[in-house]
């Protein structure tokens, strides 16, 4: 399992109900079921991954964050997880609202567009940045809503979400998570990971 997935798993209490939006190969679902006794389910847009996950006995349905969260009832889950997908959805603010409507907590990871390498490239070359994290050219990228860690914090404040935990991690997971200064994280963190809850939701 990837480092960010291990960190996500560490945020989730055992024996809780979890919806993983964009469950991919189902690694997190499998881990949560086997190691934490969670009722963990997935939504995945790539049909090949869906078939593969179901063929491994994992409960995954074909769907996506923009169109399928709206069908779940309020508080259906303890945690709703969105891994590395927020920047690629049609309406990120609405997706976050849905996540925190159907779940008590939302766990969101996304690549940080404020990373110094991206800033440098745009400043020095005057072209859209291309890095290992942001690796597709502007005309081909599915990442239509990139944001920085500070942008995301502003949205959380505007929407009334409480940031219960945050950390910045690098893409390959070679370095330990960064949890100190958020300004430095916005400069040096390749990926951000947030645990959110609604202001009115009990801890």
């Amino acid at each position, binding site marked *: 399992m990837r480092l960010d997935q291990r960190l996500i798993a560490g945020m989730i209490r055992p024996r809780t109900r979890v919806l993983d939006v964009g469950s991919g190969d189902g690694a997190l679902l499998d881990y949560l079921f086997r190691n934490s006794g969670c009722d963990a389910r997935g939504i995945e847009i790539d*049909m090949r991954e*869906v078939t593969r996950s*179901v063929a*491994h006995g994992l409960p995954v*349905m074909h*769907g996506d964050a923009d169109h399928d969260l709206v069908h779940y*009832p309020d508080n259906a889950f303890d945690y709703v997880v969105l891994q590395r997908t927020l920047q690629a959805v049609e309406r990120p603010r609405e997706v976050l609202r849905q996540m925190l409507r159907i779940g008590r907590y939302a766990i969101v990871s996304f690549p940080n567009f404020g990373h110094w390498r991206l800033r440098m490239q745009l400043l020095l070359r005057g072209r859209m940045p291309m890095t290992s994290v942001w690796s597709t050219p502007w005309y081909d990228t599915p990442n239509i809503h990139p944001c920085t860690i500070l942008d995301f914090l502003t949205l959380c404040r505007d929407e009334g979400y409480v940031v219960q935990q945050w950390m910045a991690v690098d893409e390959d997971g070679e370095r330990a998570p960064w949890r100190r200064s958020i300004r430095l994280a916005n400069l040096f963190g390749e990926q951000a990971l947030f645990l959110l809850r609604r202001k009115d939701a009990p801890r």
Partner: protein
Amino acid sequence: MDQTSPATALSHQHVTFPDGLQLDCGFHLAPVDVAYRTYGALSPARDNAILVCHALTGDQYVADPHPLTGKPGWWGRMVGPGLPIDTDRFFVICVNVLGGCMGTTGPRSLRVCDDGTEEPWGTDFPAITIRDMVRAQHLLVEHMGIERLLAVVGGSMGGMQVLEWCATYPDQVFAAMPIATSPFHSAQNIAFNEVSRQAIFADPQWHGGRYWECNEIPARGLAVARMMAHITYLSEAALTRKFGRRVRTTPGRGAVGAPGALFGEMFEVESYLRHQGSTFVRRFDANSYLTITRAMDYFDLGAEHDGDMSRPFRGTPTRFCIISFSSDWLFPTSQARLLARALNQVAANVSFVEIDSDKGHDAFLLDEPDFDRTIRGFLCGAAEHAGID
């Protein structure tokens, strides 16, 4: 030629329930025979049973040769030792549906008339629903001492039965696989069924449904019904791949019929459909076809809930796996998605897979490796969650 079906003379493994069933239409049907086949062994804890529900023209001979046609079981590639529905591990039950013609009580069964004589029910057989079919299966499952089915699996009309099982006996279904099906029978599907029925009614040998009195069967009408329905089970791509525009030739004679005649030649697709029609009438009863297609037409999970298809599943403990096929236009993926979303509304545990196939509705009976893997994996996962093995 004696046209009465040889099926009447066959005997099938069955249980008779003298008290019968209270039907949705209000009629009390008694006694009720429930014909079935089983495969594999029931575990001492009776917790490894999988009920397979058959489609409109299927029967209980899911994995052994059909007693009339001698053909292999209709899902012999799926049910058996080491196969996705593994009879080395699971106890598989398949029941002929209520209203059918392979041993379970249906229009061809005899009833006692007011004057004490016996005759077939025919068109007087009460209108039944998919839920009535499920009730009859439930009688058998309880008779076997099985408190909870590990899984209920079925395609097409079999999928409707799967959904009714989950709605009617939620605590007795651990896992459910509705395949190539829909939460309600659509107007288009009712329309196709109506054309099938009208073909039967228009046959002079129909005799108002009392065709047994004349020792005849409405073979032409039933064959046309089957031909039309069979087209809906395929896809344009499948028909093109199988037949294209090829014309059939008879060895030594070239094209069939006289040159220049309007129907002097026969396209291969025509020949195929005629064959489908003529083999069907030998094994299926016309009144059963009418009864069962009507039951499908009535199927609508939301009907008793102001159209809310999620309500029957509120609080459901069942694990669902919905499967559709990309080229199925009879029970399209869009309808499967409606079902998936209805189940999401009650936060049910749902898997939903669309299998990429160009074989149309019939794909669930054919060789689709992704489909096999999905069934095997989901059932293994269900068994693990149920604590079996």
